[in-house]
């Protein structure tokens, strides 16, 4: 990974077909110093991921074209270190446990509080930074 922000600059990908989610998360996490990109369609998002892998991915579960589980798989294929957080409007227990089996970092039900998401993202960030420092 080649970035000029001293290695602490992490990249966050947000995929949700609700544009407002992208807008708000971009506002929030840009302020926290992350490089944020948002997509409403998972297909171009995956293309972007392939061009330049993200460290943290926040994705909706149910979307047109590709669902969150597939996104999880693709992301892990491209960057096994990436932390994937799935947010969903309708959480079913079996999809949640399936997601954890596939190595999801966390699973959050909509509507969620900002603090909740922030805590998860901060945890993911520190995990990534720790791993990177150890390397």
């Amino acid at each position, binding site marked *: 990974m080649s970035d000029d922000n001293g290695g602490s600059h992490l990249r966050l990908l947000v995929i949700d077909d609700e544009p*407002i*989610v992208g807008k*708000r998360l971009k*506002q*929030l996490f840009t302020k926290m110093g992350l490089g944020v990109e948002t997509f409403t369609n998972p297909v171009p998002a995956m293309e972007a991921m392939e061009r330049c892998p993200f460290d943290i991915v926040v994705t909706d579960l*149910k979307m047109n074209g590709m669902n969150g589980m597939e996104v999880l798989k693709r992301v892990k294929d491209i960057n096994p270190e990436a932390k994937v957080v799935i*947010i969903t*409007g*309708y959480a079913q227990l079996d999809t949640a446990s399936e997601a954890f089996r596939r190595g999801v970092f966390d699973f959050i039900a909509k*509507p969620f509080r900002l603090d909740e998401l922030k805590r998860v993202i901060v945890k993911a960030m520190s995990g990534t930074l720790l791993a990177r420092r150890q390397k």
Partner: protein
Amino acid sequence: MSLLFLPRTIYGKLILSFSAIFVLSGFAALAAIYSLYSVEGKIGLIESFYGISQKILEVRSYEKNFLLYENRDELVSAMDKLEDVRAIISGRSSQDAINHFVDRGDTKLCLTELDTYSGLMRQLTGPGYDKDGMNNLKVKLREAGHAFMNCTMGLDSAAKEHIAKDVRRYKAVAFVLVILILPMCAFMGIILANWIMTPLRNIRRSVAQVMKGDISSIPVESTKKICVECAELIDALNKMLQTISDKHQQFMQTEKLVALGKVTAGIAHEINNPLNNISLTAEMLMEDLSGMDCDERRSMIRDIVVQVDRAREIVRNLLDFSRPRKPSVWVKVDLRDLLNNTLAFLKNQVRLSGADIKIDIPETPVITMGNPSQLQQVFVNIILNALQAMDGSGALGLKVFLRAGEDRAVVEISDTGPGIPPEVREHIFEPFFTTKSDGTGLGLSVSYGIIKEHKGDISVSSGPGGGTTFRVELPLWYELDRHE
């Protein structure tokens, strides 16, 4: 006027008619019995005459013996017998049959003949006649005997003639009775059939009207006066109609709840999304209110308002769909709005299914008359079936158009699923027919009922290579109006 005293029950009418028939036939039977009795009496008369002629023959044979052998004892016996005969003819014997014959002139004549005959016999039994006197008397005796016999034979045939006349009369009476009673019975039969059949026929007509949907219950008022049982029958039928319609109502409600259950995931998703947007935006505002400029704040607040509208719309749709409605609430419905609402209601379901959607709806309003929530239920059912049939990917087509030349709107909903094989197709509108493990088999049967109630048609076509198109036809509003 006699109609005023008609009994009001079928039972009463039957009793009345049977009593009338009983009286008539009783009358006929009495007449027959009377004729039989009198004929029997006349037969007694013939028997008496037979007895008389028998006795007279005996007398004459005594007379002949006397004439041959001049034995006076024979004459005594003959005279005894003659007295018997006299007793019978003069009516002194107990045989009534002959009595009313006694008064007749020819009977009296015969009695004088008898007197002459027996007088001669008495003379002959007396002593002392010379040969000529004797012969003279003998000749007279034979003549008198002959005359008397002829006279009684005349009586006999007169009696026979009399009887034959009676029998002829009875025959005529019987004939007249038949002529009278037959048409009377036929007439009564017709009246009776009418009394009973008219209210029943009325009921049948009303039932046909109910089935056509012109009326909702069978009118009872006019029947109450002429047929109590029919009124009771109508009451029972009306109660049954009510029960059926209640059941139908329950059925539709059940079906709706089942359909609703199928879309809960979609609905939860659909409501949680705007809620999430609202909460995210509000929290962002709170966190960084001072750091934003006015425009940014305003745009975020507008986001919140829009998302609230969106959630409200979803809830309204949901309530519209699930709320039970009286079937009689008919309003003008623009099929375009109805279908757009339906799609909004199912938007997430469509999205989850991964199907593409192709919509072809005209620019101009397509107005029909009906119950919007029921019509929506139909389209929800068909679209859910189509999505379930495609399972994963495919294209859902929705087309609305007016049928050229006819005042009907057509809604076609097509899918690219596996299609419906012919042996399944003939059953899909039956209640509880389903090929799905979690199906109820109610969707299409309820839809069929609703569309029929709206005087429309629902049909399905399915190509051999797959794909199914459901076609719903509904009369346009102004056509209904013109027919009113």
